[in-house]
């Protein structure tokens, strides 16, 4: 690597090494699946252990079906996250503003995390039917916690001396919020959103399993019944790609908005 600047080298390594490892793993899987080694070891029919090549062709053959269902799940995820961002941020601001509310609600919010939110999905289906509402609610409920806690942390991180300085320089409470507290909490909002992007697909899939007629989660469920293993893997690949794309988008937005970091 002579003549290369160290920064470029590390960047290349950061992309190249994981890429190589991924290629290696997929290659090994390809060999093990196409020779029937895994199926033999598990004592299964060959078609139950699809190779990466078969999965890729399944993605291609089912592209319309997958796109249709991916769109359904994507909408649930994005709308759920947006709800969580709106409600979580607002709630964090209220808790920051009114200490009584924070002291009363914060322990309950933390305690509520012991409830596996996905298990209340069937209840929400009973209440709200098979439409998109219970899915958005589940995704929002799962994403609410990381976003609220992150934003509240950001608001609390503001230096009390900075607040005094701003008061002395004629800032109203509103101006202090917009010019000091809100920008200080913005990086935290993105941290929370990135966690939300990771957990949201889990919420969406579970919500679809609780009752739905479309979506990637629904597709996986119906393919389980029909031993369509290749298409199940294809669906998982699409779901993962979607989550990765959302993560990349969030990171991109963060870099554009939080320029001072």
């Amino acid at each position, binding site marked *: 690597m002579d003549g290369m600047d160290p920064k470029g080298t590390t960047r290349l390594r950061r992309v190249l090494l994981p890429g190589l490892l991924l290629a290696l793993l997929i290659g090994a899987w390809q060999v093990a699946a196409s020779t029937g080694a895994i199926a033999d070891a598990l004592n299964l029919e060959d078609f139950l252990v699809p190779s990466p090549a078969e999965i890729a062709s399944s993605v291609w053959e089912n592209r319309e079906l997958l796109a249709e269902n991916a769109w359904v799940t994507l909408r649930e995820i994005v709308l759920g996250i947006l709800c969580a961002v709106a409600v979580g941020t607002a709630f964090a601001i209220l808790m920051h503003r009114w200490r009584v509310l924070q002291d009363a609600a914060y322990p309950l919010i933390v305690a509520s995390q012991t409830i596996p939110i996905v298990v209340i999905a069937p209840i929400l289906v009973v209440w709200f039917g098979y439409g998109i509402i219970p899915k958005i609610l589940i995704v929002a409920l799962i994403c609410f916690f990381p976003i609220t806690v992150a934003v509240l942390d950001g608001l609390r991180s503001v230096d009390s*001396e900075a607040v005094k300085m701003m008061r002395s*320089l004629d800032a109203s409470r509103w101006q202090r919020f917009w010019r000091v507290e809100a920008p200080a909490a913005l990086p935290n909002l993105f941290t929370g959103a990135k966690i939300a992007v990771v957990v949201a697909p889990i919420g969406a899939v579970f919500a679809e399993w609780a009752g739905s007629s479309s979506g990637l989660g629904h597709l996986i469920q119906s393919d389980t019944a029909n031993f369509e293993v290749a298409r199940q893997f294809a669906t998982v690949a699409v779901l993962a790609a979607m989550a990765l794309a959302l993560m990349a988008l969030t990171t991109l937005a963060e870099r554009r908005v939080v320029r*001072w970091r």
Partner: protein
Amino acid sequence: MKPQLADPDQTSSSQMSAGAELALRSVTHSYGDLATLAAVDLRVDPGGVVGLVGPSGCGKSTLLELVCGLREPSGGTIAVGGNTAAMERLARCAFMPQRDLLLPWYSAIDNAAIALRNQGLRRAAARAAAKDLFERFGLGGFEAARPSELSGGMRQRVAFLRTLIAGKPVLALDEPFAALDAITRAEMQEWLAAALQADPRTVVLVTHDVEEALYLCDRVAVLSNRPARIVAELGVPVRRAEDRDAAVTDPAFVRAREEALRALHQGSRGS
């Protein structure tokens, strides 16, 4: 790095708020059971520069916050320009905290002009008003720089400018140069002396550097250990000079420093 200051006569009239009188009468303060200030009496004439020195943790910063109306005293009165209400003090004093606390999401000039924005000016107007002072205070060309791109000395200048631009008659400076290295600190003291000459205000300067206090102020109040009271008030024999080295080596200055250190020593033992 001499500050490029204009002749005082040329300073615009809006910047000529020559200061307000400051009067503290038997001011006491305590945090719960912890008494921080015991009967502090202090008077500063309009345009006067008073230094507060004392052992660390003696309540100097608390005193500064009290003057600025950021806190209420437990007893006694504080009058700024004759007004004792906290809101009135808040309106007349500009507080400069120990660390520069420049907001990283704003450019240098937007940081400096934040008081004008708070007072209702639009961004462009606030920048235009600050631009002239940027040039004058040796910050020309750095208007758009991010705080992280500035040196420690420059950050401190922007922070001071931010305090000055608020246009208030009283400046309350809490150890403004404590975080700087010795050379930069000496430069900044010269710079501040020149800045105050061009744009006089009533200044309360908290510092634990006796030499800094004697060089920058016309009077130095020495505080005792907690609960703090003023154990000595020293007039400064040497006029603030352009040349700091000449000032601090003047025999009268050296004698005053000895005297201040002695008072400081007694104060920190005596309580």
